[in-house]
């Protein structure tokens, strides 16, 4: 049903990376009045009567990697779920490429933003290629099959995320880092202008943390808009253009990594004293939590 909502049909799929839907010409001229790809305004999400998000606003433009930081339970995962449509909204709005999310079908949402989940049920013996192919779900019609364009997108995504070499292996045989790259490839295969990442590095060793984030950085530099929940502050500071500090369901600080890490709100949000220095190796700001006596 919903695929009819997208004028242009087949041609549209090939053009997907450049911008989907209403604002085709706006995408080419990157002037200031182009709406941000992801815009969250006064968002309220309640769960069991409690406001998990209470008036959160933020925006992510194309070519921008915004890091969502904050203590456990701050509402980072909830915010991502509210943006990608897996969770309902109780107030405010989420706009994707200038259109209210609630006016879009789930299929249309999935053509605008792709999500790399924190974890997924990969206990099934699906070959890697089939999992990546699921990233094309929003493009394949019910009675149709994958087209040449789909297969090309799948191949490109696997190449990009460096999972091509184990395309035929079952996901269950992969290591945590490899599996994370498969999920990343699945999100890339959707060829959406927006990317949401929920703790993409949570279960990875430091080598794979950097590799994964460098991949994210690279696709953002090519024009995607990405919002990533990252609990490791130093890692977030290293790769993100901007950080948004979320605590208690509200935005406590926002700005460049240096601004946010130096903000008093940070120590307050995490409930620790913290010292901010420059990382001697890479020069990005680095925060160290201090014990009371230090």
């Amino acid at each position, binding site marked *: 049903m919903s695929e009819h909502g997208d004028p242009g049909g087949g041609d549209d799929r090939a053009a997907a990376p450049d911008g989907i839907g209403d604002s085709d010409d706006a995408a080419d001229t990157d002037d200031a009045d182009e709406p941000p790809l992801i815009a969250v305004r006064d968002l309220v999400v309640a769960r069991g009567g409690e406001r998990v998000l209470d008036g959160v606003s933020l925006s992510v433009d194309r070519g921008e990697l915004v890091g969502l930081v904050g203590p456990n339970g701050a509402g980072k995962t909830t915010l991502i779920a509210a943006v990608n449509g*897996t969770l309902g909204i109780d107030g405010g709005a989420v706009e994707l490429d200038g259109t209210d999310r609630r006016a879009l079908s789930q*299929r249309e949402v*999935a053509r605008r933003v792709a999500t790399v*989940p924190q974890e*997924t*049920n990969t206990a*099934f013996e699906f070959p890697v290629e089939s999992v990546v192919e699921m990233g094309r*779900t929003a493009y394949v019609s019910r009675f149709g099959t*994958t087209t040449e364009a789909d297969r090309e997108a799948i191949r490109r995504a696997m190449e990009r995320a460096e999972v091509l070499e184990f395309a035929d292996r079952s996901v269950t045989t992969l290591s945590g880092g490899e599996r994370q790259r498969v999920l990343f490839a699945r999100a890339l295969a959707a060829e959406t202008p927006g990317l949401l990442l929920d703790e993409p590095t949570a279960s990875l060793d430091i080598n794979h943390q950097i590799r994964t984030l460098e991949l994210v950085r690279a696709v953002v530099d090519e024009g995607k808009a990405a919002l990533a929940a990252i609990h490791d502050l130093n890692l977030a500071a290293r790769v993100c253009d901007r950080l948004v500090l979320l605590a208690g369901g509200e935005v406590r600080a926002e700005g460049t990594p240096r601004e946010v890490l130096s903000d008093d709100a940070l120590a307050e949000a995490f409930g620790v004293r913290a010292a901010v220095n420059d990382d001697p190796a890479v020069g990005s700001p680095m925060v160290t939590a201090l014990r009371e006596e230090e």
Partner: protein
Amino acid sequence: MTRVWRRTAGYSAALFALLVAVVTVSAGVGPVRIPAGTVVAAVANAVAVPVGVEWAAIAGAGAGPLTAGLPLRVEFAHPFAFPVSETHRAIVMRVRLPRILLAAFVGVGLATAGTVMQGFFRNPMADPGIIGVSSGAAVGAVSWIVAPASVLAVLGPLRPLLADGAGLQIAAFCGALAAGFGVYLIASRDGRTPVATLLLAGVAVQTFLGAVVSYLLLHSGESIRRVTYWLMGHLSGASWSEVTAAAVVVPVLTLVLFAYARDLNVLLLGETDAVALGVDAERSKRVLLAVSSVLTGAAVAVSGVIGFVGLIVPHGVRLLVGPDHRVLLPTSALAGGSFLVAADTFARSGVAELPVGIVTAAAGAPFFLYLLRTREVYDL
């Protein structure tokens, strides 16, 4: 991916050939043994090609099931005329084939519905009756056998249909749909149907309906034998009208479910993931649940509660082809057809005829245990 379709086509062609072979052999097995060649000849002779239509003065004269009641007379030509004795022809066409084909359709329906339910619930113990459909059918059928008047009171508007010799089937089918829909309503809130709630509601309703059936059994008096026989699942006395109904319902609903194979795959990864990938999870769940319940209800209505086909066939096939529903659904469907035809052949070829439900359980469980021990087990 083309590779997936190649696998699907390869497995399906092989399993379809197996089904045809099983059906042919089965039609030759019985008190009178008939060679496979004679079976094929008898079936070929029955092939009728419509060659012309003319308006007939008397309604229904010489009409087939499609034209009954219409003032049409269809001229048929029989392209084949192999020499087959009248006895053999009657045994194959009147006695054995309806039963065999009904077994095939019921097997296809149960195996497909079972595959869908296992994927849907992400639960290896799920079977076609998991949301109470089979139990509902049992209440309908047993009520009809024990106290038809009570069924007529409830299903008043369907009275003309019920009187037409299909009362048992219709009562069972209505019971199945009522139970399935009831469980769905109980488990739904605010337009959402959590799978875990559905599973538990299904178990509770099954238990309750089981109590109703037990109570009815206690009061079944003379008809207890018939009731028990129905509850065990059987295909004896299958008629061409039942085959015709199954030949319409089963393939159509099965194809609808095939179209949802991709959704089932994505749902296996969890509903949140599925929604993020662009699947309207609640809608897909409703369709999958409704279609597989109607399919199960139809199968149970004509054959009673044949256990294990919908549980073991999907598992066995999954052990061989993996979890991808685009391959699994068609292969499971065809394997289910062959399995039930073979089981029913065994059930009717012994000294005393057995209800096929006993055979499917007795033969299916050890075969499944063998697969479980010898194959690497895929997680579901």
